[in-house]
């Protein structure tokens, strides 16, 4: 369980998050939505200890993440940043292994168990077919799966993804969310995803947090959050909210004025 109370945080000295209070339940699949610059990334980075809050309180399972060392925190929360550099041609297998670093000694030598977990995770994320290829030779969808595998091998209770499906087509996007969904359902891990696609958020996630200008506009189930009033206000546009006839989840279509 993540509890955030009156959190103010941001980059350098400008506050991006202004007085954010929210709870994220254990084992939920939570989407953080909002406009560009609404504070989605800042919120995720503060949770992972990458940004230090100006004021307010964060508790992760009752613990203050800033009282823990980086190594301890990285056994509780795993983070997949928006951009990761692919300048060096690591093999997929080696690249996924980097996620096991929190469990290794100073010189980061993997143990038999680490190899075992990497193998299992590659099977789960269906990355084993290109395990020996280099990451700079992969397609966009394969690359995102490898990044997700790297985050999963960290074996943390909380997994945080910053726009894991940007630049992916609808098939690639669905694939990624199914992997995260299975992870959430079968292992009970808390998955938090920042994203732009409201329909995917409504379809795959069980709780939504709508941020606007560094504040929480609305939080709750997809049905509660994806109402035309809030969406029109936040995104400054006109939309129609419909219900998916099969899953029963809300979806949003824009409307030309």
């Amino acid at each position, binding site marked *: 369980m993540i509890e955030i109370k009156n959190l103010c945080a941001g980059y350098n000295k400008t506050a991006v998050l202004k007085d954010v209070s929210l709870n994220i339940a254990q084992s939920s699949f939570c989407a953080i939505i909002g406009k560009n610059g609404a504070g989605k990334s800042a919120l995720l980075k503060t949770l992972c200890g990458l940004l230090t809050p100006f004021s307010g309180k964060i508790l992760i399972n009752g613990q203050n993440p800033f009282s823990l060392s980086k190594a301890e*925190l990285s056994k509780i929360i795993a983070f997949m940043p928006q951009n990761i550099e692919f300048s060096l041609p690591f093999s997929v297998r080696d690249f996924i292994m980097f996620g096991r670093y929190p469990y290794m000694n100073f010189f980061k030598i993997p143990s038999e168990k680490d190899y075992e977990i990497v193998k299992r995770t590659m099977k789960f994320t269906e990355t084993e077919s290109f395990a020996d290829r*280099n990451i700079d030779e992969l397609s966009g969808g394969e690359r995102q799966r490898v990044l997700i595998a790297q985050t999963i091998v960290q074996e943390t209770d909380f997994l945080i993804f910053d726009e894991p499906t940007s630049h992916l087509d609808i098939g690639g996007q669905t694939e990624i969310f199914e992997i995260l969904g299975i992870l959430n359902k079968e292992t009970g891990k808390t998955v938090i995803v920042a994203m732009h696609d409201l329909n995917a958020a409504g379809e795959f996630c069980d709780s939504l947090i709508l941020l606007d200008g560094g504040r929480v506009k609305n939080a709750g189930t997809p049905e509660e959050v994806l109402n035309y009033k809030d969406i029109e206000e936040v995104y400054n546009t006109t939309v129609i909210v419909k219900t998916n006839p099969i899953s029963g989840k809300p979806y949003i279509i824009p409307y030309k004025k």
Partner: protein
Amino acid sequence: MALCAKFKSPLCQQARRFCGGKISLAFLALFILFILSFFFDLSSGSNDISFVNCVKALFGSGENDAVLIIKSIRLPRVLAAAIVGAGLAASGCVFQGILRNPLAEPFTLGVSGGAAFGASLALLLKLSSVSVFFVPFCSFCGSFISVSAVYILSGQKRFDSNAMILSGVVMSYIFSSAVMLVYSLFSAAQIQAAFIWIMGDFSAVDERLLFAAGAVIIAGTIFLCLSGNVVNAVSLGSEKSKTIGVEAERAVKIIFLTASLIAACAASVCGVIGFIGLMTPHIMRKIIGANHFALIPASALLGASFLPFCDAIARTVFAPSMLPVGVITGIFGGIFFMFLLTRNKKS
């Protein structure tokens, strides 16, 4: 049984995972290359000593003349070339990793400018006639000043890779302008020695100096070889490396200082030998991949083979006059690298 138990340690396990693949083959080839290049350099020179006599002399048998030449004149030089080659290649490799920049090399972050300035000043002011150690000492001081400046400048930007490269480039410019300033104040004849030093030269390697600087370079290189996995983590960028529990800033600091120390010691022994630190990691990366756990030692081995080879060429091509070895590394390495680049495009 004791040996078996030893091989169960995690380090050996990771090493063993490479065995059986092309990586162990590459290491074997590199080792053979190193031995060949070592004796090639040892046997080439103005006195004709055959390869076999060379090996004999090294182990103390054979003609007295040959033993004397090999042991007291050529061996220190060849050892210096091998050690410096290994050190520069290893530090080039870690710089490319931690800075995530393929153009980085040991001298990118300002070591060369400072070293060249210090040594030039010592040579032109004739401090070398006071003691042979003055040139290396001044060169090391120059590097120290330059590296400290880069450290302080980039420390304000939390050792961000771009900030480090920019401050390195700035310091290099300042010092190379200072070198030009000093040169413009002296006559052409006086400049010659300093100019040759800047291009890299093994002819004046002092044994006592080699012992001290060599020990530092070897220790530093071993440390870098062992830190390969940390370099891997840092090369993912600071956001990811922090969330997998690696204190990226601290790691960058330690690795930067170690690699700079190696480069500064290398420069104080034999001047600024460019290109080897840039190119050897690229060559090895194309052959064995980017995992720094294997890449750093492999680059070091290639550097230790390549520099003695270039040194042998530098001594023999225009014998009896010797070329600065930095010229040879640039030309040979450049051509070989071009070949490697074009070959990869076809496949």
